[in-house]
């Protein structure tokens, strides 16, 4: 069982860099950005209220997103981060999302609308993510 260490982001908000997404686990997508960058990605997503219940989504760096991870089979680069607060107690972890293979990794209605209206990503990119189409930066 992997040890998960939560770090306090601010009062009542914690984040852990889950080892499964950094240890080469063949069943998990893997981060290619550093741990501080992963935490920064989450902190910004939370601050921007890109949160829908126990799910949140982020990109990194803000304003000029770049790839932040690779898919489970490693040959595709990913640029969308998905965060989860599994127990609903503000203890979050995250991973590079793969909307092509997992419908659950696509933006929720609420976050999709926010992202298009505030131009977080161009609408063409959002359409591709939501339809599970290949989406390159």
């Amino acid at each position, binding site marked *: 069982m992997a040890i998960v260490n939560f770090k306090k982001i601010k009062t009542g908000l914690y984040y852990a860099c889950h080892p499964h997404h950094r240890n080469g686990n063949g069943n998990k997508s893997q981060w290619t950005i550093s741990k501080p960058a992963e935490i920064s990605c989450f902190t910004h997503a939370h601050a921007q209220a890109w949160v829908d219940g126990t799910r949140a989504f982020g990109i990194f760096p803000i304003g000029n997103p770049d790839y932040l991870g690779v898919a489970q089979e490693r040959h595709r680069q990913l640029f969308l981060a998905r965060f989860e607060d599994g127990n609903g107690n503000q203890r979050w972890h995250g991973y590079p999302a793969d909307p092509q293979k997992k*419908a659950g990794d696509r933006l929720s209605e609420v976050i999709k*609308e926010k992202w298009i209206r505030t131009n977080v990503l161009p609408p*063409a990119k*959002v*359409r591709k993510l939501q*339809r*599970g189409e290949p989406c390159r930066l």
Partner: protein
Amino acid sequence: MQTLKITIRGSFWDTQLYKDVLYVFELDGAVRLVNWPALVEGLPVPDRCRLAMECSFLRSDYLYGNKWDRLFQDQEIQALLASKFSAALHLPLEVDGQMLDQFTVDRDDSPFPYAPNDTLFYKDHLYAVSQSGVYSQFMSGETVPRNRADRSWEAAVSGLDVNLDVLALAAGDEGLFRSPSATYDLGVSLQPHAEQVSQQLCNDCSYVRSSILSSAHETGATLAEFRAPKRSSERSEEDRSREFWEAKPLSVIKGDDLFQENTAGSFCWGSRDRICMAKDGVLTVIKYLPFNDRRRNLTKPVREIPLHSWKGSPVSGDNAVFGAILELDNALVVVRSDDQVDTFRGEPVNWRVFPRSKHFTNQLHVVYEDRIEILSFNHDYFVDQKTKSFGEPHNEPWSGRTWGT
């Protein structure tokens, strides 16, 4: 004849065109209903271009059919028609916000989720699929409904198609599903529901005859084969729909067996009897053979053409009567039925064709961030519909394929 274009300025998500109403999904969350014939006729065009404008944007069916064959064999008549389209080609067919308002019938908040993944018109109902489910709404064409659309299924769906009142739904890693349409007669005791057809990853789906092609870039394609219900004078359309809905797939065929090569990493799509695959810089078209015509093979090769590498990898595709449309990373490509290739650089927000309409089969709507380009392709009138490689035949009768105007 050349491709004509009307440009509508603004920030939009998607369009639909049904029974002479242009439906525009705007990025602010509104849906706008536009009187399409009035808008086209309101464009400042000289009289000599009126026929070309009408054929291009209002009545794609005018120049099809056997009745014109003798006339079209006449080189002078061909040249005269081409000259009328050429004259229209040089006109600035631009619609600004003020002109769009002038021909807007109604505009209000969309009854559907914001920026749906896909939409489809069928029997006066507009269907939209989104991350939160499958929605339908009767659309009169006169007003935007003030109520929220009905949700028939709560699942993330990225694409849909319909045939004989049965929706095909692409539900990602949940697989391919079928569901009765809003106009299917369920009877009093049944509630709408969806049934899984295939568990394989499905990000897009399309009917090929009465079978359903399921596609996902990572895993490739599969074809769930369904037999079409027979027609007879004693059987109503409702009877056929019921038989079709209650049918189970005869088989689920791997894309590798359709194309004789691995379809993983490709994008596949189909319509009528054509199945297309874009992979590794090549667009391949095959013909899907109906049960009665099969001996050894399920499919027959039709054509292959190479694609320029700068255009990127395949994203999505669809078929129209004027050709096969393929979206790549950096361009939208139309492989025309006359074997010419038109390339439109850039990354569209959305794009759409209307192969099942009666009057708009020649149109391609491409939404970019600051405009919609409504393109009209007018070469297919002179192409032999029986032998063309790319695009659907215009005059092939097939039940349920035409349901709009």
